[in-house]
């Protein structure tokens, strides 16, 4: 059992565990922790594949994002009479069928199309990255800017205004 596969398995376990907790936890804190774990694991994957920069971005964006999210969550989430925040889940068969069906169809579709193991990584420095963004992916970059502009204005509009 190679070190790669060990790392991979560990990260995979963490990611799955985190994701599942995020989706099923009744307690807000647990959910937050689960999500954190999931995101960290994702970051871990990036780094493990050599996409360090990607990992960094992921880390910053999400740690920030998730922290904010959690703060609001604890503020907003509906509380039980005892005062402990509770996240309810309505498990229903339709949702299960949809999720399960999607999983089955996609996985079967991809089976065979992809190799079993990761044989090569992505190694690239920030310099090349900049080159890409100012070169072939300039449009993407611009669009990203547009997107952020939209986000900015949207958030300001929605949160900035009093209840007009």
């Amino acid at each position, binding site marked *: 059992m190679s070190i790669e596969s060990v790392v991979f398995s560990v990260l995979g376990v963490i990611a799955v565990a985190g994701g599942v907790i995020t989706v099923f936890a009744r307690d807000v804190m647990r959910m937050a922790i689960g999500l954190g774990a999931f995101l960290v694991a994702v970051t871990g994957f990036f780094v493990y594949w050599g996409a360090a920069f990607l990992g960094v971005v992921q880390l910053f964006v999400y740690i920030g994002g998730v922290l904010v999210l959690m703060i609001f969550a604890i503020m907003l989430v509906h509380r039980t009479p005892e005062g402990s925040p509770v996240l309810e889940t309505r498990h229903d068969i339709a949702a299960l069928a949809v999720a399960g069906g999607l999983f089955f*169809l*996609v996985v*079967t*579709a*991809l089976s065979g*199309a*992809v190799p079993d193991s990761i044989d090569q990584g992505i190694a690239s420095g920030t310099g090349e990255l900049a080159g890409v963004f100012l070169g*072939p*992916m*300039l*449009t*993407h970059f*611009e*669009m*990203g800017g*547009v*997107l952020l*502009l*939209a*986000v900015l*204005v*949207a958030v*300001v*509009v*929605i949160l*900035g*205004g*009093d*209840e*007009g």
Partner: protein
Amino acid sequence: MLVAFGPHVLVIAGAALAVALDAFDRRALAVFATVAGLVAGAVTAFVSSLRSPTISGDVLLSGTGFSGTVGVIFAIAAVLMLGSWRPLSRAPFGGGLAALAGVSVAAAGTVAVAADLLVVLIGLEAMALCAYALVWSARTARSTEAAVKYFVQGAVATGLFLLGLAILFGLYGSSTSYVWVRGVMGTAAGPPVTTAFVLMAVAFAYKVGAFPFHSWALDAFETAPPHFAALLAGVPKLAAVVAMIVLFSRSVFAGLPTDYQLWVFGSLAVLSVVFGAAGGLLQSSYTRMLAYSGVAQVGYALVGVAIGAAAMTAAALLVAAYAVAAGAVFLAAGAFRSVRPDWDGTIGGLAGLGKERRLLAVSVAVALFSLIGMPLTAGFWGKFLVFGVAVSAGYWWLALIGIVASVISFGYYGSVMRALFFEPSPASASGGESDSDRGAESAVVFLAFVLLAVGVAPLVAGLEPVLRLFSFT
């Protein structure tokens, strides 16, 4: 690159300027800035529509119908923004909203001509984010609810598209441009490709609001401010339909056997037509009825998408006609409200308006007839060509379903005309101070005039002039 992206940049610039102006609380100016950007963008786009089609940086298409579509999108948006000048200049953050509208239109314009999966994804996302805010901006409980539901569904759709993108990029990637992916992929129609195809098809079907991905549209268009509903109902669909045919039938998935497009979009088309037509019959709310009818209209467009490249021009014309007409009827809702502040939003509540504001009512009637697909309006030529192509492709039953549905649609479009013209005004007509929104009204009248002109002119001049705008070769 600049040729391709220039118009969009102009629009975005206008939007950015609007944001700035809003910061100084110069809303009216902000609106005009946006309009100016749109107009400039439209003009440049029309100019470049005279060029032969090119693809710049493997990312953006331009020339002929592609630029033409962009121009049409911007032009319609410009008229609608002008029409919504008064409500915007009165709304809090009006300038910001105008900017959001401008951005979403720019994004739509990008999607329409994008030749890159990632650009498409970002464009769709930008449109969506703006749309959430614009729907929300009615600042009512209902609009907030609608916006957040819209968001939940949107997130799922984005996720699905992202999944599809991951598959394609992961397998054939290192670049997301159509040309590249297509080149690497060849005509391989393996399960991964078809899966990605469906996932992206779903994302687009959601964007245009086809059954069963339509639910957001009903709530959003009902509760959004009429002038934004006018913008969101039509323009994005035009962009999306063009983008769909490019993506699914002309580039990345062109290698798939046509059965795929036919079955996926054909079934969606039939479902949407039936759902929209039948569901619209039950609506009492004017805007919600229009939202339902929008689902049916998307169905007609999807007939074109199902046929594929051959129907591109026809489909584009059909959706463009829809965008104009939908803009008119939604904008009219705002005008009605300003004439009758105590209007409860129901169709019945429009009783007798035909006498009070004849020109407005007649223009609305024209737009409705265009939506029905009556001759002498632009809507007719759209349906005529789409169904014609479907027939010549051998799918006359598809055309027949659409045609019959458009008959049913008179059931609800007609109920509006009935209220406007056949019913007497209610006794308590003058509830609340009525000051008609001239801006909105004149915009509606103008759009109706466009519909008529495009509807009548081909009779004597032939269809060429109209089609030249939407020829994608």
